[in-house]
């Protein structure tokens, strides 16, 4: 039972949570974005492509701007721009959301790979470490507050992490307590009712999709800047799709999105964790774990997964 004793050390758990934060944050941003547009009735399958656009532009911004914040801004910009395609084609013209989503994913994968490889294939530049911002007092807690294995300590994360977590709380408040949130939910539940109330469904959904793009771009940029410290073609490796699953499992509740993202983040960072615990598993087995976890979760919670009735249906005024 040596393995078991190593599993239960505090080192293991602090690095589990810290690793989960690093790997789970891109998922969290993207899934928060997806839950906004799902609530408004737009299924965005193109997250993977948008994330890659955000990651590449975020990398460019941080590399040439010399500052992580330029990178995040560039990522947000790229994500928003690529979601404009979705706004025009799916929300305004009412075209098939799944086909357009697949197209965005393919084009995003292709274009980022081509651009990166034509410009950086020989140098493959890396970005510097992102400085953490320690939380006063908490960072002085004996074991939890220390840096382990070169990872940033738990209470000294990059500033974006705190902002992201704060944003999740804000989003809960927006969904529950504000007119904007009510409109968003109505656009997904019963767009006719929203229209009858005198609010434009198209405008509501457009803003929702744009903010999805912005958050997805930010998620991609975070992955490139703080997660891997550089860009590679196909960097996201299916995380866009995982974000869709998280949004569906969380049923549009932002705090549940945070919890699920951390869970999957821990699963994603499991390979390093298991090395700490002294367990050697082949990388394939470790890769399978998060996806297997999702399939299991879907099997167990399948009855409880909830999607808005008007999801993926374009709203055409007067159409039946």
């Amino acid at each position, binding site marked *: 039972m040596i393995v078991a004793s190593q599993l239960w050390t505090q080192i293991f758990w602090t690095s589990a949570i810290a690793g989960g934060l690093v790997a789970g944050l891109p998922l969290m941003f993207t899934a928060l974005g997806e839950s906004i547009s799902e609530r408004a009735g737009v299924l965005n*399958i193109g997250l993977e*492509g948008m994330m890659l656009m955000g990651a590449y532009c975020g990398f460019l911004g941080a590399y040439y701007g010399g500052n992580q914040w330029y990178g995040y801004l560039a990522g947000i910009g790229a994500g928003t721009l690529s979601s404009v*395609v979705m706004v025009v*084609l799916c929300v*305004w*013209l*009412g*075209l*098939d959301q*799944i*086909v*357009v989503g*697949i*197209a*965005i*994913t*393919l*084009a*995003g*994968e*292709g*274009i980022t*790979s*081509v651009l990166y*490889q*034509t410009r950086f294939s020989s140098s493959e530049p890396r970005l510097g470490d992102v400085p953490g911002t320690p939380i006063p007092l908490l960072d002085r807690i004996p074991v939890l507050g220390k840096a382990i294995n070169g990872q940033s300590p738990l209470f000294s994360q990059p500033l974006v992490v705190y902002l992201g977590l704060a944003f999740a709380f804000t989003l809960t408040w927006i969904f529950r307590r504000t007119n904007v949130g009510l409109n968003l939910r109505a656009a997904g539940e019963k767009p006719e009712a929203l*229209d009858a109330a005198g609010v*434009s*469904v*198209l*405008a509501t959904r457009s803003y929702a999709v744009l903010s999805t793009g912005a958050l997805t771009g930010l998620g991609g940029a975070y992955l490139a800047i703080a997660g891997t410290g550089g860009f590679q*073609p196909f960097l996201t490796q*299916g995380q866009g*799709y995982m974000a*869709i*699953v998280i949004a*569906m499992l969380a049923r549009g509740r932002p705090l549940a999105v945070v919890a699920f993202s951390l869970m999957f983040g821990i699963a994603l960072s499991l390979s390093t964790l298991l090395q700490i615990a002294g367990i050697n598993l*082949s990388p*394939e*087995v470790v*890769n*399978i774990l998060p*996806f*297997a976890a*999702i*399939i299991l979760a*879907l*099997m167990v919670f*399948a*009855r409880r*997964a909830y*999607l808005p009735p008007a999801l993926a249906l374009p*709203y*055409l*005024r*007067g159409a039946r």
Partner: protein
Amino acid sequence: MTSTGTTAGEHPLSAPRRRPRRSLRGEWLLDVVMRSIVPVLLALVAGGVLLAALGRNPFTFYGSIWTGGISAGAWQDSAIRMAPFLLIAAGLTLIFRANIWNLGYNGQFLLAAALVSGYAPKLVNDVPLWLAFAVLFLLAGAVGAVWTVVPSVLKAKYGTNEIITTLMMSFIGIDVASILIKGPFHDPSTPLPQTAVVPLDKMLPSIPGTRIHIGLLVAFGAVLVVHWLLTRTSWGLRLQVMGANPRAARHFGIDLPRLIIVSFAASGFLVGLAACADIMGLWGYIRTGWNPAYGDTIIPFVFLARLNALAVVPFVAFFSVLSTGGDLAAQQANLPTDFLLVLVGLILLFMTVIEYLGRQRELGASYVPAGLREAFRLRRRTA
């Protein structure tokens, strides 16, 4: 036919149509050209602009696609590539007709490919060759079908979104294939993570007079069968009723869960066949990390063919040329072959737009939806 306009002016109710009717055939042809070929052309033009922006000459790029994909004997290479493409296209056509999204084709394909290349080297030596091929094709199909069971049962029983489950199963399938190749199927004579190689004379025989293997014939056969199933059988009709309106289908007494599971399995079966045709016809072995992701790029052409199994053939032929020649063109232009993904994505986008324009024109409706006009008017008033 043309005399409908002669009564003009006699009676207000019999006023002639403004636009003279084109012959049905001409209209049909124009429709096909507009809806199918224009998106491809637009995507090629947009891709050309992109190439120019990257500092490559688009004309040389498209020129090398021609030399690498058609001229001299290159069309045979394109035809060899066409076999798995067609089988995947047939599988996707079938399932998309039911309005179900099987996006797990990559996992189904690779898992089937891993099992085929794992068992083939032994099997072709142990049993008569025709039997080995039959067994391998069936095995590959069965593996593909089995990999759809979790998504299809979840969808049939709980209505779980199949896009998510098929994608997750796809990721799992790719890794399981990799584990199989490194583990039980690993060729001990090499340190590389790959399976034993099937001897050249034990591969699928080629069609006499060409280098093209008979997998292409299997693919054409599958396309015909799918077309027959969809258009000539009651099963195909039920499938399409389910796709068009599941509630109506349930009202008719169609057993939806069973239909979902069977059509999903059929789709996976065809994707599995594609893997067998590709491994036994072309490669002869599989290495970890090899994931051609054929399905990703086939999807647009399935849509361009309006989910018609026969119409898919010319599109897949076009794409086979594009991808065979594209490899050479990308290499010569010093670009990654992922550039083709951009082209395919553009084709999809232009297709949806052209489709929309065509539909509005047919209905005689405005190109700007009412709600959009409303939204802009609203904004201008408040601003």
